[in-house]
């Protein structure tokens, strides 16, 4: 965020706010997706291999296990 905003006209400023908002929301949404992917794999996936490996962790984190 530039500190010399007094030199920006209103439209440029609005564009700047839009761009910084977009550049913030995009990465955050990606992070939400990736975090959900990891948690669904560790806590919820039905595969027997994943279930058995994550068994004790699932119970201890209160994920529904079996």
């Amino acid at each position: 965020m530039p500190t010399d905003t007094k030199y920006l006209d209103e439209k440029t400023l609005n564009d700047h706010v839009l761009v910084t908002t977009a550049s913030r929301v995009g990465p955050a949404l990606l992070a939400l997706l990736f975090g959900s992917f990891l948690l669904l794999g560790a806590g919820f996936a039905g595969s027997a291999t994943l279930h058995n490996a994550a068994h004790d962790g699932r119970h201890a984190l209160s994920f529904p296990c079996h």
Partner: protein
Amino acid sequence: MVGRIVLTAVLAGLVSGVFLWSAHMVKTTPLILAAEVYEKGAGATGTDHPHADKTEAARPHTHAPPAAGFERAAYTLLADLVSAVGFAFLLTAAVSLKATPIDWRLGILWGLSGYAAFFLAPSLGLPPELPGMQAAELGARQTWWLATAVATAIGLGLAAFSPRRVAQALGVGLVVLPHVIGAPAHEVGQSNVPAELAAQFVITTSVVSGLFWIVLGGLTGYFYNRFGNS
């Protein structure tokens, strides 16, 4: 921004994940092993164990976690690390969306909100279970658990951060709604696991998870602040 989120989530997740695993090895895994003795004692070996869901019971499968020892501990470490890093990405994403300054103290408050959304709220309807305890059909429980966690997280965010009264009220409604609908129920009193063991497990997991979220939240606040200034 991407680098700041990834660095924060990976570091906070890995460190808190090692803490979570240590606490699990010392406090919860011994209770799970003790409960498995009763699970097996009831004639429920390998493939012969209670299932409310007949389709799942019919599918060929085993509930045979690796034998106790190094291998089982290593798998639990892996599962705990993946879970902790997953939680860390969700928490860092929320902190990043809020876009206000944070430090380790505020981070702990964020962590406690995560504890409320991902442990307290789901556990209110579906208490932590030991192997061998009776429970409702798995799919229904997983759906209720996920819906409750998501509704609580969004509800808390709206209630805490929205400037509008209507949205704040909606947030409170979202937190309450899953409990009005109610968790999938099961018949109580058919388990072979002693009640004392089950009670000990609920208290232990509650304390361990609370400590984990405090560590994760504090580290997330610390790292997110630190990587923002560099």
